[in-house]
C-alpha cells in the first residue's frame, strides 16, 4: 500500500468520524424530545446566519481570537496550564505546517525550501522542544499529588502517549539518520557522484568529525589535511542544501547518545521501521482524532465561540439543546471545574459516592445517546448533581466556555423525572429549580418534592401510635439526631403557643392546622411524645422557612427552629439509607 493511500484512509476515517460526531450534536439530547434532528439542523443554520449578520459578530470574532486561538480564558484561570497547553498546541501546529505538510506549505513562504536547510532544520527541533516541554509539564501536573485534582482517565493517558510517541519516534528517526553511514553514502552518491574516492573519503572523515556520522571504516583522529579536503568537498557538494547537523540540536544530542550502537540501526530495514512507526503513529492520531480527546481541537473553539453569543434568555431552545451536545464533546477533562467546585473539599471528606463535575461528563455522554443508564450510574450522577450548590464557579472557570451549570440543570431535571426519590430537593438547593421554574414542565415541577416527602413519611410510617412510644427500635431514631434533640431541649415547652403565633408560615394559611398537619407548638409536643410517624409525616417539618421567629420569641428559650433542622437531618439520613438500599437491590 502506498503512503498516499494510507494517508487517504486515515483522513477518510477522520472525516467520517467527524461527520458522525457532528451528527450526534443534532440527534442526541439530555432528555429533551421537543425537536427533531432536522428541526435542530435548520435552527442551527438559521442561528448561524442571524449571528453572522448581527451586531454580535464582533463579539464572536473577539472570542475566537482571544479565547480560542490565544486561549485567553485558560490563561486567566491558570498560567501554568496555559503554558503547557500552548507549548503543545503551538509547537504541534507549527510541526504540522512546516514539517508534516512542509512540502506544500513551506514553498509558499520560502523560495528555496530544503528540509535539511535552516531555518527548517533548526525550527523542527525548536518546535519539537515546545511540544516536549509542554508534555512534560502536563505529565508533571498529572503525576503531582494534588488532592483537588480529578483522577487521570484513560483518554488523558492516550492523548499524552500518542503525542509523546509521535515526538519520540520522530526524534529517534532523525538521530539515527544523523549517525547513519548508509544515509551518508546514499547522499554522496546522489549529490557528490563526480568526486574522486579520496575526496569522498575526506568528506566522510569531515562528516564523522563534525556532523556525527558513525563510520565503520573511518575513525579519528583525522589529519588536518584530510579534514581540510573534506571541508572543501563539503562546501562544494553539501553545504548549499544541508546545514550542519548540530542545528537539529535535539536530534543531534540523541544521536550522540546512540553512537556506540549506531551500527545496529544503520541499514534500510531499521530506518524504514522507524520511519513507518513515526508515520503510522501520526496517521493513527489522525484517524482516531474524532473519537479521542484531541477532538477538542475543533469542539473547544466552537464551544467558546458559540457560548460568547448564546444565552438561554434569547437563543432558540432547539439551538440550546444542540449546544449542550456540542459542549459534551468540547470538554477536555482538564479538571478546572472540579478544582473550583464548591463541593470538592466536602466530597473528598464525606464521600457519598457522588461525582465531581469533571467526572460527570463521560456518563453524561452515555446518557445523551439515549441508552439507559445503569441504576448505579444514574444514582451516582443524581447524587452529584443534587448536591451541587449552583455556585457557578465551574462555568466561570471552564477554559473552553462550557455552560456547565446549564448542563447540570438539564440533566438534573431529566433524572428527577425518574421516580427515585431525591431528598436534596427538600433543601434550599431547590431554590435554583425555583428560579428556573419557567423552563420546567408543570407536571414535573412539583413531583420530586412530593416524592421526597412521601418517602420520608413512609420511612417513619411504621412507628404507629399507639405503639410503645419508648420502644428501643424507635428510640434509635435519635441516634443520628443533634444535641438539642437528644437532650430533649424542648422539655421546657409548656405549649404556650407563642411559637405558633410568631410563625409567618402559619399566618399564610386560612386553616393552618389542616394545611400544616402540625402547628409548631404541636410539633414540639409530638417530639416530646416520640410520635415519629406524626412528626416526620407532617408538612410543618418541611414548610418551615427557618426564620427563627419562634425561637426568638419563645419564653422558655426552646431552640425550636434548631430542633426542626435536627429533625430534618434525622429524616434525611434515615431515609437516604433506605433509598440507596432499594436502588442497590434494583441493580
Amino acid at each position, binding site marked *: 500500500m502506498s503512503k498516499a493511500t494510507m494517508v487517504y484512509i486515515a483522513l477518510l476515517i477522520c472525516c467520517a468520524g467527524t461527520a458522525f460526531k457532528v451528527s450526534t450534536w443534532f440527534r442526541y439530547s439530555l432528555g429533551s424530545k421537543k425537536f427533531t434532528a432536522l428541526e435542530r439542523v435548520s435552527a442551527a443554520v438559521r442561528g448561524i446566519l442571524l449571528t453572522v449578520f448581527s451586531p454580535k459578530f464582533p463579539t464572536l470574532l473577539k472570542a475566537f481570537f482571544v479565547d480560542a486561538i490565544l486561549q485567553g480564558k485558560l490563561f486567566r484561570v491558570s498560567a501554568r496550564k496555559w503554558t503547557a497547553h500552548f507549548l503543545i498546541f503551538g509547537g504541534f501546529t507549527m510541526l504540522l505546517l512546516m514539517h508534516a505538510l512542509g512540502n506544500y506549505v513551506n514553498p509558499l513562504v520560502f523560495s528555496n525550501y530544503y528540509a535539511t536547510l535552516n531555518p527548517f532544520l533548526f525550527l523542527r527541533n525548536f518546535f519539537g522542544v515546545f511540544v516536549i516541554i509542554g508534555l512534560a509539564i502536563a505529565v508533571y501536573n498529572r503525576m503531582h499529588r494534588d*488532592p483537588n485534582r480529578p483522577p487521570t482517565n484513560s483518554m488523558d493517558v492516550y492523548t499524552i502517549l500518542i503525542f509523546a510517541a509521535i515526538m519520540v519516534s520522530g526524534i529517534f528517526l532523525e538521530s539515527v539518520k544523523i549517525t547513519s553511514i548508509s544515509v551518508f553514502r546514499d547522499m554522496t552518491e546522489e549529490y557528490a557522484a563526480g568526486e574522486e574516492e579520496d575526496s569522498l573519503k575526506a568528506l566522510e572523515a569531515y562528516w564523522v568529525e563534525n556532523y556525527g556520522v558513525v563510520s565503520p571504516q573511518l575513525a579519528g583522529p583525522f589529519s588536518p589535511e584530510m579534514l581540510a579536503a573534506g571541508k572543501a568537498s563539503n562546501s562544494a557538494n553539501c553545504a548549499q542544501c544541508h546545514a550542519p547537523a548540530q542545528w537539529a540540536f535535539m536530534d543531534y544530542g540523541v544521536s550522540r547518545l546512540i553512537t556506540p550502537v549506531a551500527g545496529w540501526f544503520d541499514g534500510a530495514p531499521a530506518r524504514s521501521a522507524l520511519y513507518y512507526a513515526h508515520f503510522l503513529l501520526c496517521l493513527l492520531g489522525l484517524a482516531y482524532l474524532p473519537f479521542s480527546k484531541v477532538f477538542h481541537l475543533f469542539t473547544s473553539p466552537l464551544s467558546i465561540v458559540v457560548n460568547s453569543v448564546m444565552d438561554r434568555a434569547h437563543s432558540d431552545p432547539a439551538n440550546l439543546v444542540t449546544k449542550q451536545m456540542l459542549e459534551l464533546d468540547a470538554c477536555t477533562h482538564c479538571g478546572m471545574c472540579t478544582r473550583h467546585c*464548591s*463541593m*470538592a*473539599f*466536602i466530597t*473528598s*471528606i*464525606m464521600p457519598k459516592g457522588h461525582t465531581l463535575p469533571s467526572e460527570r461528563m463521560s456518563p453524561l455522554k452515555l446518557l445523551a445517546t439515549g441508552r439507559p443508564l445503569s441504576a448505579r450510574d444514574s444514582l451516582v450522577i443524581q447524587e452529584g448533581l443534587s448536591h451541587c*450548590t*449552583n*455556585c*457557578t*464557579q465551574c462555568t*466561570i472557570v471552564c477554559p473552553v466556555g462550557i455552560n456547565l*451549570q446549564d448542563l447540570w440543570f438539564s440533566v438534573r431535571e431529566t433524572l428527577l423525572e425518574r421516580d427515585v426519590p431525591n*431528598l*436534596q*430537593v*427538600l*433543601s*434550599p*438547593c*431547590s*431554590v*435554583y*429549580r*425555583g*428560579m428556573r*421554574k419557567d423552563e420546567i414542565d408543570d407536571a414535573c415541577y412539583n413531583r420530586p*418534592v412530593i416524592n421526597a416527602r412521601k418517602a420520608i413519611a413512609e420511612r417513619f410510617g411504621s412507628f404507629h401510635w399507639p405503639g410503645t412510644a419508648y420502644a428501643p427500635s424507635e428510640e434509635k431514631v435519635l441516634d443520628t439526631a*443533634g*444535641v438539642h434533640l437528644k437532650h430533649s431541649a424542648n422539655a421546657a415547652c409548656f405549649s404556650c403557643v407563642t411559637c405558633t403565633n410568631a410563625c*409567618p*408560615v402559619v*399566618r*399564610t394559611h386560612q386553616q393552618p392546622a389542616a394545611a400544616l398537619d402540625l402547628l409548631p407548638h404541636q410539633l414540639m409536643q409530638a417530639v416530646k411524645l416520640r410520635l415519629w410517624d406524626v412528626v416526620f409525616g407532617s408538612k410543618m417539618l*418541611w*414548610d418551615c*422557612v*427557618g*426564620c*427563627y*421567629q419562634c*425561637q*426568638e420569641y419563645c419564653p422558655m428559650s426552646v*431552640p425550636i*427552629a*434548631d430542633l426542626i*433542622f*435536627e429533625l*430534618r*437531618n434525622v429524616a*434525611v*439520613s434515615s431515609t437516604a439509607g433506605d433509598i440507596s438500599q432499594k436502588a442497590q437491590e434494583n441493580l
Partner: protein
Amino acid sequence: MSLVIFPCCVSSSFMGDCESATRVVIDKLGVEIEDGSGFNCCGYPYKGVDFKAFVLMSGRNLALAEKKGADLVTTCGCCFGTTKQAESVLKEDSGLFEYVNDALKKEGLVYTGKSTARHFIEVLLSNPGIPSLKDKLGGVFSGKKVATHYGCKVLRPSSVVKFDNPFSPTKLDDLVEATGAESVSWSQKLECCGAPLMGVNDVTSMQLAKNKLESAKQAKADVICTACPFCYLQFERTRDILSRESGNGFNVPSLSLVQLLGLALGLDKGTLGINGAALPPGFIPASRNVRAAVGVS
C-alpha cells in the same frame, strides 16, 4: 483583623453583575477588603439535610480566612447567619470542632476560632462610619422612601449572630438614611421573605413575599432595600410574577444594599445589574450631581 470578601453562590448564579459591582462599591467607599479565593459554599443549603457537612463547609471558609489572618465579609444575610451559626456550633460542640479540624488537616488548614463572619453593614458602620458616609453620599436620595429588609439570618437567632436588636434593629436603617433617604416603618419589616421555600413550596414562599410587598406598598416605600441577595431575588421574582398575573398592584421594586449604595455613588445601573424600568421615575440620581458629591472628576 484584615477583611476578605466572601462570595455568595446565589449572587454568582443570578446576580453576577451586582457581585462584580460589589468590588467597585467597596473601593469607592475606600474600605479595605481583599479578594479571597478557594472558598466553598457557606453550607446554608445543607443545614437541614446534612448538618455535619454544613459545619464543615463553614468551618473551612473560616479556616481559610484565619490562614490569611482575616475576617470574612459577606453582603449576603444567609451566608452571614449560616457562618455565624457554624462558629457558635464549633465553639460549643467539641466533637464537631475536632471533626472539622481533623478534616481540614488534609489541606493544611486549622480553625481555632480567631476569624469570624461580618456582614457588610457592620463593616461599613465602623469604616467609613455614618458621618463620613453622609459626607460622601451627600444626601442623594433625600425625599426617597426606603423600606429596609434585614433578612432573617442577619437578625436571628440573636444569641448566635449578635448583630442587632432582633425586635427593633437599626443598623441597616442608619446606613440607608446615610444616603439621605427616609427609612419607613412597615409592619412586615422583620418577617421572612419566603425565599428558602422557593422550589419546595412555591405557594407559601410566594405568599410570604406577597405579604411583604403589600406591606411595603402600604408604607408608601419607593423601594425595598435588602441586606441579602437571596431576599432581593425573591422579592423581584415575586413582583415580576404577580404583576404579570394581576396587573400593576405589586410595583415596589427591590434593591440590594450594594445596589442602593452603588446608585448613591453614581454607578451605572447596568454595572449594578439593576433593571431600571421597575424603579420609580426619578429615583436614580442625576449622575453629574452625584459625581460632584463623590468627588469623581
